């Protein structure tokens, strides 16, 4: 095993590097979206791609999300591998019909004759002080659409590895980028990027014996922080980073909860109709006889995303997570 000099890189840089490497490796990879060319994207995630590969490979499109995704479908039909950027979570909604009615179904509609290898990058989630329409957690909509893969990284290394996997996938992938982690840094060697487990595999970020926090994307660092704080209460929490919401890794989640006997699902998305309900149901169906307490959820409130000066009350934080852990019927153990 070789030791490489690790240097800090941001998630945004890792995502850029993933697209750059994919474009260099495969001439059919095309990046397209609003402001992705000259500007390098409003989050600078496509920085330098137009300069290196030209406007035909990294294209500033007209400002129309349905048109962006719809034309990307046609490009994929002709053998290209488009990587589409939706500028913000809530600006992806105009493309919803293309996504639901065509992107997710074309392979099935044609009995496999016309697969659509498309990556749809969506910066999502709150915590950046964004005004209305800039902080939505829209993953439940995508999860409810058969035919799509839905993945979201929480670390710099996963940002690179999962995006490479998404671009290489022959299925459409909704790639949700937690925008408040764009500037998070990790010691990661950009010149020897880690390869990643295939799409569909969760990872245990922290092992523990008392209870499992099941989470993904922007809530992963919050859960890790909560797990550290929980030590003072005598709880040794395990943290599972799902990474893929679709396909869902029942195996890793089930194994963890069967080991700990308690689980809390944590996400920013609204609780009612949110991913946590599905996850809690799956855990309960598979782990009922191992559970010492009901599976609880810590989610965003069932409200439209708050204005920035109030968003801290909405986002699941360490205290709210620890409160939920405290309600996992510990008295039964004593």
């Amino acid at each position: 095993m070789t030791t490489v000099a690790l240097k800090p890189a941001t998630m945004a840089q890792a995502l850029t590097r993933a697209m750059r490497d994919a474009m260099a490796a495969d001439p059919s990879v095309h990046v397209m979206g609003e402001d992705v060319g000259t500007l390098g994207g409003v989050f600078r995630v496509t920085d330098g791609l137009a300069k290196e590969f030209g406007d035909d490979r990294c294209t500033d499109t007209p400002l129309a999300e349905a048109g962006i995704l719809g034309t990307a479908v046609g490009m994929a039909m002709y053998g290209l591998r488009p990587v589409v950027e939706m500028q913000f979570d809530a600006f992806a909604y105009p493309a919803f019909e293309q996504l639901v009615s065509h992107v997710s179904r074309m392979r099935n509609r044609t009995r496999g004759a016309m697969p659509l290898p498309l990556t749809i990058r969506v910066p999502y989630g709150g915590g950046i002080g964004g005004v209305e329409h800039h902080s939505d957690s829209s993953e439940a909509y995508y999860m409810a659409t058969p035919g799509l893969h839905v993945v979201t990284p929480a670390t710099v290394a996963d940002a690179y590895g999962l995006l490479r996997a998404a671009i290489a996938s022959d299925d459409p992938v909704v790639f949700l980028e937690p925008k408040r982690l764009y500037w998070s840094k990790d010691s990661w060697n950009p010149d020897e990027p880690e390869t990643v487990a295939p799409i569909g595999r969760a990872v245990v970020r922290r092992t523990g014996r008392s209870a499992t926090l099941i989470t993904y994307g922007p809530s992963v660092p919050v859960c890790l922080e909560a797990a550290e704080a929980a030590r003072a209460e005598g709880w040794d929490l395990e943290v599972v980073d799902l990474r893929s919401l679709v396909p869902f890794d029942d195996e890793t989640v089930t194994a963890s909860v069967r080991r700990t006997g308690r689980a809390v699902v944590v996400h920013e998305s609204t609780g009612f109709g949110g991913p946590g309900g599905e996850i809690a149901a799956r855990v309960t169906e598979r782990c009922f006889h191992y559970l010492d307490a009901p599976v609880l959820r810590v989610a965003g409130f069932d409200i439209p995303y708050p204005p920035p000066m109030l968003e801290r009350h909405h986002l699941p934080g360490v205290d709210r997570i620890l409160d939920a852990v405290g309600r996992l019927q510990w008295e039964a153990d004593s």
Partner: protein
Amino acid sequence: MTVMEQRGAYRPTPPPAWQPRTDPAPLLPDALPYRVLGTEAAAKADPELLRRLYAQLVRGRRYNAQATALTKQGRLAVYPSSTGQEACQVAAAFVLEERDWLFPSYRDTLAAVARGVDPVEALTLLRGDWHTGYDPYEHRVAPLSTPLATQLPHAVGLAHAARLKGDDVVALAMVGDGGTSEGDFHEAMNFAAVWQAPVVFLVQNNGFAISVPLAKQTAAPSLAHKAVGYGMPGRLVDGNDAAAVHEVLGEAVRHARAGGGPTLVEAVTYRIDAHTNADDATRYRGDAEVESWQAHDPIALLERELTQRGLLEEDGIRSAREDAEAMAADLRARMNQDPALDPMDLFTHVYAQPTTQLLEQQAQLRAELDAEAAGPEGAGR
């Protein structure tokens, strides 16, 4: 005193004189739909092409009648007929080269058939044994699109991709008058023009979006005029004049292939049948209106031209009809056979590799079917 009122203190530099980026005049459609049949232009039309068009129109009319009959016999779940629109359907297929692509809507199965798709496979969606019956790459015909206008950006993207790859491929996308109100129509037109994509948009203005007449759909001077706003030429053509539609679409395809960019063609036609077999057109239009369009029938127009010029005799007409009957008999016979269904297919093509969850659900359905096949005793209950 405001800043504006402080004369001398505020001297804005006038901006450069504004000029239109594109001269709109050459983009404007004609005031009246372009016609060939019954005009002097007909003399320039290729007689062999006209005869081929005629045979296909007759065949297309018979295909529409047969498909409608199949709905009454329970062999098709639904059929949106293109009776009266055969000239548009056939011409759209005729103007394309083999390497080109056709993007049909759900009413355009005849165009797919005219391009070479097996009629049984073209009707799979409407029979209901699967969503698409043909491999789109075999004849370069995209799956029939049911959500209105959503196929238009696909055509633009495909044409754009072909140009990026250096292929001289043209995409022809079909949409109805109602579809022009959809947002995807607008976005596709705009992308096509900005990218100068080699794509031709064929709007079949058949008068109705189910029951809603064009007057409630748009206030534009014509649908072809919409092209001007995007910076592409708009052409207005008599959609029942097969020679005219063929000529206008053919020019648009050549223009696109030569790098001239997209064209919007509005073909004015009429939906003789109801929206589908499940619709009752008498609720929103009168017989007189339908009869006036039947007097302008695409087959009759072409037949009159051909016979008057001595290009078509009785035996030619008979031969076209016999060919159409043979096609209908074959279609009828094959559609009267129950399609082979495998419920396991429901899980096979959702993803490249079925997920663990889908494999579990497939196994569940398999067990249910096995129990059903075994009967109450076999199930051991």
